């Protein structure tokens, strides 16, 4: 069989066998609707309750502070829209950052149309939000701060605990999109003063189509989905029992293997980054050198364009990404790369390699053997490189 190497774990992950095994009974034998009062229903309800308890424990949250959703996107939309709608009498100002995922950014833009005022905080060249700036932007009409725990493109990890101290002191809700952080960052919603936290199971070896929102007890917010009385009347829709069990199994596993995995990933990632920088000229590392996700390497290659790199790598059996998978249908270079100050030209030439638990050192070797030829070939074809060689450059 052709060699296949998956370096796109930030886009999605293969399910852990143990997780899938845990889910299967809830498709077939234990298929009841958790809202039903007969034994089929009660068995399913027990499974959902246990999953809620497991998930809560991993985040140091309460059992009744976990709400299952259909995706990380739904959790983000719900958190921001729900807090905005329920607190609009208190104020109409929301603070977020310029490098959030579109699930957050577009929800904020939609709220702007509805009369809310949104501040999109800039980030420094490493992608870091400045907590002092969060503090100085909070005014009397601020109701919510939404800053992601870790960025999906450049992997930068934000100082959420510091931000949490500020929002707590100021009496403003703090939401964090932890979709990329779960599984690699230890999360304690109490210690970090987080009021709302989004996560998505398929990013940590769980199933697709299931997410969760942590909502601190007492948080005022409206539902996003109306209907049945599920999730204590706050998120309607028949519970996805297999998905919920899968999410809980995956988050527990991810948490218990976290330190070990992180160590392995950081070692591989750093060898990958160093290898690329040594073997190839005119490469930039995007994101923070240390405060970054263990599996994330984001590199920009001058004179060439990302998609042709991706496809060339794919032909060699290596799956990578350029910017976020979610935005690959778009033509603009990533808003995140522009926000950290890259020029459009360089942003177009970015490559994201996101490592995961299934990757091996041999795969890093193979990648480091393969990439230089690809870059050389594309550069040979590029008129920008021509000009560069000729003594001047567009970039």
């Amino acid at each position: 069989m052709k060699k296949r190497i998956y370096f796109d774990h930030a886009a999605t992950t293969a399910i852990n066998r143990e997780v899938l095994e845990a889910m299967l009974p809830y498709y077939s034998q234990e298929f009841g609707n958790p809202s039903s009062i007969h034994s089929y229903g009660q068995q399913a309800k027990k499974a959902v309750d246990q999953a809620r308890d497991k998930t809560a424990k991993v985040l140091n949250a309460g059992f009744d502070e976990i709400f299952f959703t259909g995706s990380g996107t739904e959790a983000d939309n719900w958190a921001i829209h729900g807090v905005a709608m329920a607190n609009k009498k208190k104020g109409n100002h929301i603070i977020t950052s310029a490098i959030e995922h579109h699930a957050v950014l577009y929800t904020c833009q939609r709220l702007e149309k509805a009369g809310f005022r949104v501040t999109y905080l800039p980030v420094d060249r490493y992608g870091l939000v400045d907590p002092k700036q969060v503090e100085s932007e909070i005014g009397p009409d601020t109701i919510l701060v939404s800053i992601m725990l870790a960025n999906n493109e450049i992997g930068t990890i934000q100082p959420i605990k510091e931000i949490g101290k500020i929002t707590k002191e100021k009496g403003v809700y703090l939401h964090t999109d932890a979709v990329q952080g779960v599984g690699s960052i230890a999360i304690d919603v109490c210690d970090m003063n987080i009021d709302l936290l989004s996560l998505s199971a398929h990013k940590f070896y769980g199933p697709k189509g299931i997410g969760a929102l942590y909502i601190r007890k007492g948080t005022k917010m409206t539902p996003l989905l109306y209907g049945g009385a599920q999730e204590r009347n706050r998120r309607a829709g028949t519970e996805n029992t297999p998905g919920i069990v899968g999410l809980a199994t995956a988050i527990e596993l991810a948490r218990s293997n976290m330190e070990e995995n992180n160590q392995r990933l950081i070692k591989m990632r750093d060898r990958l980054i160093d290898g690329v920088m040594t073997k190839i000229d005119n490469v930039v590392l995007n994101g923070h050198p240390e405060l970054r996700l263990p599996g994330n390497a984001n590199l920009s290659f001058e004179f060439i364009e990302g998609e042709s790199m991706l496809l060339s790598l794919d032909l060699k059996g290596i799956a990578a990404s350029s910017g976020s998978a979610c935005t690959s249908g778009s033509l603009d270079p990533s808003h995140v790369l522009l926000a950290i100050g890259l020029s459009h030209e360089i942003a177009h030439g970015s490559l994201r390699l996101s490592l995961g638990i299934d990757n091996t050192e041999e795969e890093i070797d193979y990648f480091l053997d393969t990439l230089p030829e690809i870059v050389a070939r594309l550069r040979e074809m590029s008129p920008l490189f021509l000009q560069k060689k000729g003594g001047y450059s567009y970039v």
Partner: protein
Amino acid sequence: MYSEKVMDHFINPRNVGEISEPDGVGEVGNARCGDIMKVFLRIEDNVIVDVKFKTFGCAAAIATSSMATELIKGKSVDEALAVTNKSVTEALDGLPPVKLHCSVLAEEAIQKAIEDFKEKQETKVGA
């Protein structure tokens, strides 16, 4: 995502390179938008006897560059001007909708190179 023909022209692009002292050169696009194509023409008796290109861009940009240069090679200048982004796209068995704009790049670069050729001609004639 891409047709086999697109992938073939992306993997083995025809006519990559430069022509020194070309009879016509055209460059369109800009790095800001993510694609640039530069076309070099060698023209004898109003026939395109050789063509080379360099492209910065996605697989669609590279494949359309390759296909477009194939389509005009050996053709008269007027025939080459009749090559449109539509004919290039068709020759590649189509492109994904979001990539259609890439095919315009090749059409425009060729037109610009032929204009350049004609201007040079006039200069020569004028001289």
